[in-house]
């Protein structure tokens, strides 16, 4: 390879990196980039359209629905643990509802979830329920609550960041099961563990495949359930607080975000930010 043929790598605006160019080299491309930036700065502000607003709000709402749905885990758990109610009727009701939905709708899930596989899953869950119950029995309750809290945060994060194609993803299923196992050790009988597990699976894994989260019927039901639960458990004061917060979140925040994005977001911060290569170079 002769000296003439050797191609120089493109100049990058980074400190501390040895490049083929002298230190006081000025790249013509960079000057063009800065000129473009200046031109952009002098551009008139873009006007917010209603479509932009609606799109942003739908994203915010999606996250809200995810949070609502995650509440169901705790609702179910406290139903069994705190209120000491028998979970069997609830479980049977949910199962019948799901079977009904599967029969009506012809989606990919209905072909996958035929009778044989449901029986396998059910028996597997039955067998493994005692094991799940005893997995973290020796751990103290406080650490269980902490663990469950962080697992829930992780679950919300994973579910909201997974793309539309593979909802729910394997990682979210994993985290959900971890959460369920951790909480299941606090329950007293195997039946309760089995019911808890099946309810969680049905609500968080099977149902989202069958019906859309943004279906109006679903939205109304879940809102109703969650707020009732909050009222019953914590009192109307906390329920009202949560309601106000969610209102603010849904109505005010999108507008704020849009406003900030148009007026205060500086594109050149992205450029001026980059001085160092992100990967540390160890000599």
């Amino acid at each position, binding site marked *: 390879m002769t000296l003439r043929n050797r191609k120089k790598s493109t100049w990058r605006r980074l400190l501390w990196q040895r490049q083929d160019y002298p230190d006081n080299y000025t790249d013509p491309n960079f000057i063009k980039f800065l000129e473009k930036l200046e031109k952009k700065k002098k551009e008139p502000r873009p006007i917010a359209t209603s479509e932009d607003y609606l799109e942003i709000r739908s994203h915010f709402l999606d996250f809200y629905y995810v949070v609502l749905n995650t509440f169901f885990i705790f609702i179910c758990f406290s139903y069994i643990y705190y209120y000491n109610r028998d979970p069997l009727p609830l479980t049977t009701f949910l199962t019948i509802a799901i079977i009904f939905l599967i029969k009506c709708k012809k989606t990919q*899930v209905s072909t996958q979830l035929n009778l044989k*596989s449901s029986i396998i899953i059910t028996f597997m869950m039955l067998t493994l329920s005692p094991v799940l119950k005893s997995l973290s029995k*020796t751990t103290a309750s406080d650490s269980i609550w902490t663990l469950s809290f962080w697992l829930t945060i992780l679950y919300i994060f994973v579910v909201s960041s997974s793309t539309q194609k593979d909802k729910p993803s*394997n990682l979210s*299923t994993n985290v959900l099961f*971890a959460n369920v*196992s951790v909480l299941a050790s606090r329950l007293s009988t195997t039946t309760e563990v089995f019911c808890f597990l099946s309810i969680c699976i049905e609500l968080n894994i099977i149902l989202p495949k069958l019906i859309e989260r943004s279906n109006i019927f679903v939205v109304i039901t879940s809102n109703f359930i969650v707020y009732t639960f909050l009222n019953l458990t914590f009192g109307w004061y906390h329920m009202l607080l949560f309601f106000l917060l969610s209102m603010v979140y849904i109505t005010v925040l999108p507008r704020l975000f849009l406003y900030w994005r148009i007026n205060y977001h500086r594109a050149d911060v992205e450029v001026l930010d980059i001085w160092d290569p992100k990967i540390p170079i160890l000599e």
Partner: protein
Amino acid sequence: MTNYVFWPKKLRKKEVEYQSETLYAIAIFKNDTDYVVLDVIPRASVEGIKLLEAQYRVIAEKLENSTQWSFKLESAVVVEFEAPRLKLMQFFSLEPISLILPEKEFDKKVRALKDGSLRKLSNHPRYQSKNERLRQTLRLLNLYYRHLSRFSKAYPNLCYQQPSFKDLMLSLIEHSVLFLRICKYFSTIVTSLIMTICFLAKAIFSILNWKMFPLVNISATARQIALRCQQICYFPLQYSRIYEKGSLKKAHHETAIHLHKDLPSKYYPDYIRFYNTLWLIINDISFGLILSALLNKHRQFLAINVHFIVNFIFSEIFQKSAISLANNPFGIKLNAELGTFLSDIFLWIIDFSFTAFVKPLTTEKNLYRFIDLLSQITCLIGGSFGISIITDFFTLLSIPIYIFYHISGKLYFWQINIMGSLFYLFCGKKKNVLRRRVDTNYFQLDQLLVGTLFFIILLFLTPTILSFYIFYATLQMISIWIEIGLESIIAMVNHFPLFALLLRIKDPKRMPGGICIVSVRNNKDHEPIFELRSNAIALGLMFKPYSILLRSLLNNYFSIQTFKKLLFGIPIMVNINKMYFILYSSLPKEPVSLFTLKEQFFGTISENGE
């Protein structure tokens, strides 16, 4: 073309003696060697002889009272050398003397040359070394004294060699008839005795190495016995090879007319090996005497302490650890059910092994008897047997650790493997066993659910199994290291190259490791005069089997690879036999058949008797 003239150093003294006469230098040469000066002879003696044989030639002349030789050859370069004394088994060699049997050569490069296809390639002249001329000249040099005696027999007027006193005595004894008859009777008795011993030894060796259940792989004592049997079987063969007609004896025999084709230096390694083994066995017995005296003196102390230590280990370390591993060791919360289950298994195994064989073996009285027996055996047979019995005793006592390690290792291995393949399930991949790679696979919902459930359960059970595995793996590694330490001591006693080492210190010329040609001085014309010296064999080369063994031991039991094996749950086994293959390089693989033995040994003895 330069002609190299090899000049023995002792002739310089003769030069000074015959300073006042004209001297001729007579050299011997073959058609593919250089000139080797046999003798310097005063001109007066040479005049009588008309013609010399083809291989002898007068190559240089020194006038009276001059100090310089004028060569009849063009561009002669003088290389001085100290003639190797055949009686002391000195010789020059281009390669280091090989103390290993050629079929056991563990240098892969050399071994490859013995294979068929590579042999054809290496036979091509292009790949031959270019030292052919030097090699032939060295052969000539090594047999210098023999050629000199032959020359003096052919031309007695030119030079006269006095037969030594020892040769005269030997020839006298050999011709005595009575002595011959006694020798013959004696030799038959000796031969039949040796044959029976060899037969017994071969039988014991084949029993110990029985393919169905080779004791040699399990017990160190069996290995030691097998080694001794092999050595005993090999002794007569070695002896006959060394003292065979036409080798060492021939070299001493002055009346040899036909020079044997083989150089005597071919049998020197056998000589060294034979006496090395003999010396090591005697050393072993004396070491055994020391050991037995020590054992006798400290019998009481040893019995009490060993009893105490074994009891301590079993009750404190094993039992208490098994119990505490089940109950949250170091405050780590383990799964209660699995933990109690595993610790119950291990407690049961400890109890069983303790009552079954450990306790009876290590009561003070039994230990006392055992040490007594041990000291008797070491006294009689040798120290290595004592150490191997101790090793076997230790292996027997550490059987529980072996069981624990394998149980917890298997569990851990399954755990890691299942979690690994379930993890592939989450990434949407599956292991393709046929193609030995990981492919993407589309799983159904039920498969995903069940897989995730199993994965979570296994994940929560990991700390429990891991803690058991770490503890028992550490115990097993400690026991392996102790065993290997003991085995290395046995290996040192059995295979140390003592004879070769002392030989090298006493007379480096008997262990050549190559030659070097250095320039010592310049003659009158400022031409350099060279000297041919033999390099003694490098010490590192003598201990090469040991360094290889050490490296392979370290690699197997004390390296990153070991750690990786432990991490993945692959069991670590001790396979001493395969490793010590290197040290057995001075013995043939199987003991020789009795037929060959009879022919060779019997033949030698009967010939020596005649």
